[in-house]
């Protein structure tokens, strides 16, 4: 059973309220594909992924990034039940998408860096610590139904 302090919840929801989900999602997914190029293996039908510029501008990457981060928003509304929130998605990522859960950790860390670049000094150490905890738990919840 995960425990969130009131301060942690505030650091999460407070920051989230200022996040542009579409932009942030697109950026995070694009960076995943750029910084860890092997992750492109899951997106072979996304069209042009031949360069950082191509990836950043790719509309399918942008759309999918938005989808992924929107789902993250659901987790934030259900911080006390991440496992339940992600049960179906976990099965999907295992059974249909065949994604190695290590990739969830990579994306989580990249999201943190995107937030840091965007919020600068406001992304305080306390904020980072709370968000690292969150992305770690989300990654864990997504990996939970793997078999």
């Amino acid at each position: 059973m995960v425990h969130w302090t009131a301060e942690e919840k505030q650091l999460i929801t407070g920051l989230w309220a200022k996040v542009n989900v579409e932009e942030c999602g697109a950026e995070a997914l694009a960076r995943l594909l750029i910084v860890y190029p092997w992750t492109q293996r899951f997106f072979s039908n996304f069209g042009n992924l031949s360069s950082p510029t191509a990836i950043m501008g790719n509309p399918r990457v942008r759309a999918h990034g938005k989808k992924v981060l929107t789902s993250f928003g659901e987790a934030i509304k259900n911080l006390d039940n991440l496992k339940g929130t992600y049960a179906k998605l976990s099965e999907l990522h295992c059974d249909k998408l065949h994604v190695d859960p290590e990739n969830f950790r990579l994306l989580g860390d990249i999201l943190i860096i995107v937030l840091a670049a965007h919020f600068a000094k406001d992304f305080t150490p306390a904020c980072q610590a709370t968000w690292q905890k969150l992305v770690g738990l989300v990654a864990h919840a997504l990996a939970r139904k793997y078999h």
Partner: protein
Amino acid sequence: MLTAEDKKLIQQIWGKLGGAEEDVGAETLWRMFHAYPPTKTYFPHFDLSQGSDQIRGHGKKVVAALGTAIKNMDNLSQALSELSNLHAYNLRVDPPRFSLQFLAQCLQVVLATRLGKEYSPEVHSAVDKFMSAVASVLAEKYR
């Protein structure tokens, strides 16, 4: 593998820190201790309160070592040989794969907060690869 372009980007980015290296080092460590409490287990002898002289001093050391690495990217193994010995035989920090990962993540966050948009995907990628290479070298002599 670090390309010529990666190396150029890293040197450029490092150049932009202009004197703030000590702050960057201290903040990186502080964030690491905060976000990854188990990393504190390697510093039971330190005053780990915010702004402590020991955190500043150690942060400065870490950043200086990275600076040396950046000046010697074509020969990291040799440049970091002493540090590699130290980490393997003396400090025995949990294989760098784990702990350096946390240090690398926090360094990237600090760089990103300072550089904002300038911390482009290309720069991000280059720094990530560089820290990975540093971690590999430091792990060379573990066993």
